[in-house]
């Protein structure tokens, strides 16, 4: 007998439950939660994107691809997509780059105080993004914020519109705040990989004259290739998931300069009440997510 949950193997009157039924009992709670709250809404977002409707409107007008035609002509949509990409690539450079350097120093550069440094640098990871963003709002305050004082003390002029008020730099500030919080995560992830690199490999390289930076480049980096791929994937997924930082730091402003796909969906849906159009933005985000999820599957270990 074939059931969707596997072939029943125990033949012949044993009073144990069939393996298919066992599998179903163990698997279905998780699978159905994911189906109901992730995949069903994803499908509804796709179908909803073909309609025009509001939060309280009783009717939905079918508009076909109308929302998508509007979307490609909407400059805020393109700004949002660009900002997501800035955060993805900027975070890969900052968080993985700096995380890698810090991890390498902790692994082989220093011994005294390494637990101390590791603990401090990881600390912000467990603080909520909202709390982090509120603290930074005050640090970045254009009147008495700490960053202004520091910049002035070295003789430079802070931006006259404020760090988050200047549309040219605000997205980079968001990127910086994210790096402040997340770099410790990457550092610890990469450090775990580094500690798995066998000592003999470094000794062999040292005999060939590769030490310090050369050893890092030719021995360390290739040895942690897999962990770096995981780090890039996690950062990329995070870069498209970003919502909290932008929502609290800038609300997507000034003049939508820091809008990302997540916050723009929220704005269209819950502030402006254009649910159909919000769904169309969300579908773009969804397609990107599925693509990355598929990539992740390709590199993740399979049975």
């Amino acid at each position, binding site marked *: 007998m074939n059931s969707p949950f596997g072939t029943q193997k125990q033949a012949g009157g044993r009073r144990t439950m069939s393996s298919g039924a066992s599998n179903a009992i163990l698997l279905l709670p998780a699978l159905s*939660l994911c189906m109901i709250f992730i995949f069903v809404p994803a499908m509804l977002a796709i179908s909803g994107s073909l309609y025009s409707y509001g939060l309280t409107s009783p009717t939905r007008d079918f508009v076909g691809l109308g929302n998508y035609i509007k979307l490609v002509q909407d400059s805020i949509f393109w700004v949002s997509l660009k900002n997501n990409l800035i955060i993805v690539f900027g975070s890969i450079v900052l968080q993985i780059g700096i995380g890698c350097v810090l991890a390498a120093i902790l692994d082989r550069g220093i011994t005294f105080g390494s637990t101390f440094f590791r*603990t401090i640098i990881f600390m912000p990871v*467990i603080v909520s993004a*909202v709390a982090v963003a509120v603290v930074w709002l005050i640090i970045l305050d254009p009147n008495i914020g700490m960053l202004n004082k520091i910049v002035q003390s070295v003789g430079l002029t802070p931006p006259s519109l404020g760090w988050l008020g200047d549309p040219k730099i605000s997205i980079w500030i968001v990127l910086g705040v994210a790096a402040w919080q997340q770099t410790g995560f990457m550092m610890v992830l990469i450090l775990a990989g580094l500690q798995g690199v066998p000592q003999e490999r470094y000794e062999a390289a040292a005999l060939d004259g590769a030490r310090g930076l050369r050893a890092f480049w030719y021995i360390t980096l290739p040895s942690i290739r897999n962990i770096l791929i995981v780090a890039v994937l996690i950062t990329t997924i995070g870069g*498209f*998931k970003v*919502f909290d930082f932008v929502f609290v730091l800038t609300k997507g402003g000034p003049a939508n300069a820091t809008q990302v796909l997540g916050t723009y969906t929220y704005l269209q849906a819950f502030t402006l009440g254009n649910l159909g159009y919000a769904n169309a933005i969300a579908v773009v985000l969804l397609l990107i997510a599925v693509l990355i999820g598929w990539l992740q599957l390709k590199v993740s270990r399979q049975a």
Partner: protein
Amino acid sequence: MMSKFRITKIALYGIMILWSTFVLMPLVWMVLASFKTRREMFTAPYDLPSALTLDSFERAWGVGLGWFIANSALITVSSVGLIILVSGTAAYVLARAKSVWLRMAYIAIVVGFAVPVAAVIVPLYQMVSAAGFVNSYVGLIIVTSAYGIPFTVILFFAFFLDFPKELEEAARLDGCSKQQIFFRIIIPLSGPAVASAAIFQAVFVWNEFLLALLLLNSPGRKTIPVGILQLQGEFTSDWPAIMAGLSLATVPLLLVFIVLQKYFVRSLAGLGK
């Protein structure tokens, strides 16, 4: 030769101290600023507080911080329990799976990890609202759990693949069902995996913002992240009160982390597999 070695050491320590200071400064200032008076905050924002006043803590607490913390604790404990239970059992079946259907189920769950809440928030909100679960703890717990499951399944899946199969085989020959094998043999031997998954999900659920913002918004029912935002909105210029609220919401968690940091770090080690 010796001096070059020492210069390198000093440079390496320099980098570590620089980044640690950058990380620590906002957190230290957050705590210090909580003890200042509002006046002091504007006259000397970066000096040590002249006296340790607790007024700002009282003002922050008055917003309902105690409730925010209690709500977050309730939702975190329930969600993490649910996530660990259902993800553990599912990952076990999937790690032992041979059928195409089960492979597809695993693929679906992995892809689910990449789906941002914001991408499905409109239909999701309408579904929860139509079911009458807006402003219900149960509603938020179930929905948040659904978003914690994929990552936890991936973690457990990698762990169970490495699990020695001989023990399970022996139990099966003794007539144990799959559920019995899972709960009596696998789980007791999976302490480290359960601990690391629980730590990850506790941090995720405790800090989750978008779902909590939309699904739990009546005054007494907010979680900490949503409550902090309310605090910031209400005390626009009362920075000491905002900082006091932030300190109360984050410092206990940071202390827990410092005590348990070894486990946090270890829990990350399995990710790269």
